[in-house]
């Protein structure tokens, strides 16, 4: 597909300018982090965008369609990860740089580049912009935050700036859609006045400098630390570039700012205050968890009820048989289980997007860096790890902003210990079954204490593992911590909405495909081979069926190994199935305990089934201790195919995902063993 695309592009490029009008243009949006790139991208593309695969923050390249002019087919707009310089220091920046220099994936070479420049932070933003101008590609500068600059007493002479830089400069205010039409016209002009598609960019050493003869920093980066002369040369060029930019900016900008601390600095006086700062951080985290635990429960039970009712209705109207079983026990139950999960994900991502957009996330990293460094991690690891509380997959994606590869791998390795939302259904089921209604100190529910303990245990294990990894296989000197603290901004709800939409659709895709497939596969594993004897009672028949099925046999096979943890073969089936995704254990247990057909509320009937299940000797199978052992197993084991897949992709080897699954499984086994056997020794049951 991309090969075809490429030949097309090459053919087209040989044609004269008019032909440019007919084909699909590719336009790339690049700029510093926090410069308003994503906001502009969203305003230009609206809802016509898609994120390739799992997104972190803006870690993946996003693509969208942008209508430059009504007569033309929409252009393909690519939103690159933010970068400060072409001398990339993180994977994020490398990806962006490769696309900008035409070394990116096929079909991504740009017809034009929109360089997003923050008007309130001109000098530093122009550093990258001038580097890009030197590559002589068709460039338009979009001057974002123009309204903020005006309010901040900056008078920018756009024409002068444009003259000095030699490229068109368009002031835009993305939220109000100001300047977007002008931007489209400038881009079109640029493409049409070029006789043909721009040749592949220059080698890094060939930059002739801005507007003839001036120095370039595009010479290849020296690699050896000992190469002092090279670095000196590089530094000299860098200093000259800044001097040049300062000249341009002081010519074009009139500042009436008296250098008083801005509003962000005044907010910081509270938010990163010695005592108030940590308090604010804790309050924010509490608010987030309150939302996930309490506010999400109503829509969750609503979805749950709707799907059990749907299953019952289908069962009532269709003839009994294998097809109806597949539909109700496999498909409807599976889809319902997936969707019931969505409110939590929505709420958590809502908070994460707002925290990102407002600028608070960087403050959290600022506050947490000293602590994170104690275990050898970077303050930037805080955001990916926090995201991992929703789902390790976007969390692991978000580690791309960590420059040091060893730090990044250490962060990835511990991300799955953060209790993700897929564990919550397991925790809540166990608590509903064995710990509900009990109070600690008379007021706090025991369930809440146990869930909190699970979160803390996960964090504690993560700290220990990170420390061990950083002192053994991932030993490295502490990486530098250089992080921008962007000005606080009121989150743009359009942007938050976009982020929510893409994250939820990605979750649904993951859930809809993987979990549904597993749900059906599991149903099949339990439905085949078909049992021989005709059941006397429907329930007895089902139990015999499952015991003889493939799943039952696999569960029995691992039973000796998991018996010391307090688990029997039915839980064994659940453990096997939940390697696909943790929450599938719920649907598996529902099927194993044959509660799918119960007319009452499904989860409460599963709770009853668990409470009533007996061992062969007649003692109750599920005890609070078994529940606790299972929760700890689920906390520590890497039972998530999606995580494994994303680690494979992010580390580009099978070594790390295999290592991750193995060490987490060993940890989980040992911890559950200690919990169950230790609990027995202490006299608990």
């Amino acid at each position, binding site marked *: 597909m991309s090969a075809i695309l490429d030949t097309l592009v090459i053919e087209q490029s040989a044609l004269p300018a008019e032909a440019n009008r007919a084909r699909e243009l590719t336009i790339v949006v690049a700029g510093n982090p926090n410069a308003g790139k994503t906001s502009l991208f969203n305003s230009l593309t609206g809802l016509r965008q898609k994120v390739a695969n799992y997104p972190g923050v803006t870690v993946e390249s996003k693509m969208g369609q942008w209508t430059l002019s009504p007569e033309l087919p929409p252009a393909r707009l690519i939103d690159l990860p933010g970068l400060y310089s072409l001398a990339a220091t993180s994977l994020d920046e490398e990806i962006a740089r490769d696309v900008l220099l035409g070394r990116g994936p096929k079909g991504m070479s740009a017809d034009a580049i929109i360089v997003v420049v923050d008007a309130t932070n001109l000098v*530093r933003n122009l*550093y990258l912009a001038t580097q890009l101008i030197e590559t002589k590609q068709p460039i338009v500068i979009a001057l974002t935050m123009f309204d903020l600059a005006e309010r901040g007493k900056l008078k920018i002479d756009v024409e002068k700036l444009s003259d000095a830089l030699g490229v068109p400069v368009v002031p835009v205010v993305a939220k109000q859609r100001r300047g977007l039409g002008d931007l489209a016209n400038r881009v079109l002009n640029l493409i049409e006045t070029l006789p043909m598609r721009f040749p592949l960019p220059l080698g890094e050493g060939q930059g002739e400098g801005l507007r003839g003869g001036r120095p370039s920093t595009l010479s290849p980066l020296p690699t050896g630390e000992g190469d002092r002369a090279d670095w000196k040369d590089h530094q000299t060029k*860098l200093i000259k570039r800044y001097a040049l930019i300062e000249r341009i900016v002081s010519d074009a900008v009139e500042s009436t700012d008296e250098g008083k601390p801005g509003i962000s600095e005044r907010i910081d006086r509270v938010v990163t205050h010695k005592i108030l700062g940590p308090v604010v951080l804790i309050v924010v985290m509490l608010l987030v968890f309150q939302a996930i635990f309490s506010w999400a429960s109503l829509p969750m039970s609503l979805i749950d009820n709707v799907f059990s009712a749907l299953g019952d209705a289908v069962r009532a109207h269709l003839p009994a048989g294998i097809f109806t079983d597949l539909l109700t026990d496999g498909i409807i139950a599976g889809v319902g289980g997936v969707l019931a999960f969505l409110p939590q994900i929505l709420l958590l991502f809502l908070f994460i997007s707002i925290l990102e957009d407002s600028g608070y996330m960087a403050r959290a990293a600022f506050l947490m860096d000293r602590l994170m460094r104690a275990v050898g991690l970077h303050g930037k690891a805080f955001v990916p790890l926090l995201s991992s509380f929703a789902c390790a997959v976007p969390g692991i994606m978000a580690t791309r902003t960590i420059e040091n590869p060893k730090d990044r791998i250490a962060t990835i390795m511990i991300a799955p210990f953060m209790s993700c939302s897929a564990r919550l259904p397991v925790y809540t089921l166990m608590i509903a079954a064995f710990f509900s209604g009990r109070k600690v100190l008379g007021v706090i529910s025991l369930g809440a204490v146990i869930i909190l303990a699970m979160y803390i245990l996960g964090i504690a294990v993560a700290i220990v593992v990170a420390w061990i990894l950083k002192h053994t296989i991932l030993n490295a000197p502490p990486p*530098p911590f250089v992080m921008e603290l*962007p000005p606080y901004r009121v989150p743009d709800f359009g942007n938050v909405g976009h982020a929510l939409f893409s994250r939820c659709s990605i979750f649904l895709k993951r859930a809809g495909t993987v979990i549904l497939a597993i749900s059906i596969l599991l149903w099949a594993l339990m439905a085949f081979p078909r049992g021989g004897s005709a059941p006397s009672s429907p329930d007895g028949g089902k139990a015999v069926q499952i015991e003889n099925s493939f799943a039952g046999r696999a569960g029995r096979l691992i039973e000796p190994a998991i018996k010391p943890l307090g688990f029997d073969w039915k839980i064994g089936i659940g453990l096997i199935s939940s390697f696909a995704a943790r929450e599938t254990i719920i649907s598996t247990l529902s099927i194993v305990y044959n509660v799918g057909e119960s007319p009452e509320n499904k989860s409460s009937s599963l709770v009853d089934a668990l409470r009533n299940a007996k061992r062969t000797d007649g003692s109750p199978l599920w005890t609070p201790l078994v529940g606790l052992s299972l929760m700890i197993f689920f906390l520590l084991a890497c039972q998530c195919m999606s995580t494994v897949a994303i680690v494979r992709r992010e580390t580009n080897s099978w070594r790390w995902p295999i290592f991750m699954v193995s060490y987490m499984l060993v940890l989980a086994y040992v911890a559950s063993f200690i919990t169950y056997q230790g609990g027995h020794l202490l006299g608990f049951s």
Partner: protein
Amino acid sequence: MTLDTMPKDVTARVASVEMNGAHGLRLMEMGLVPGAPVRVVKAAPLGDPIQVCIRNYHLALRRVEAQAIEVTLGE
């Protein structure tokens, strides 16, 4: 004087960045080039990292890195 020992809320100028390799380069790319005015805003609650104001924006860096940045007070 180095940036990490600089008093709060005083504006100084960067004299030099004594750090080689990609890290030193990145500090300079972020605007910490000789001659640029710089001001320490505050330290994080645990004393590290520190927040500086450079070229009209705010940057967080650890004391280890700040040590490599020579500044001159006055003017």
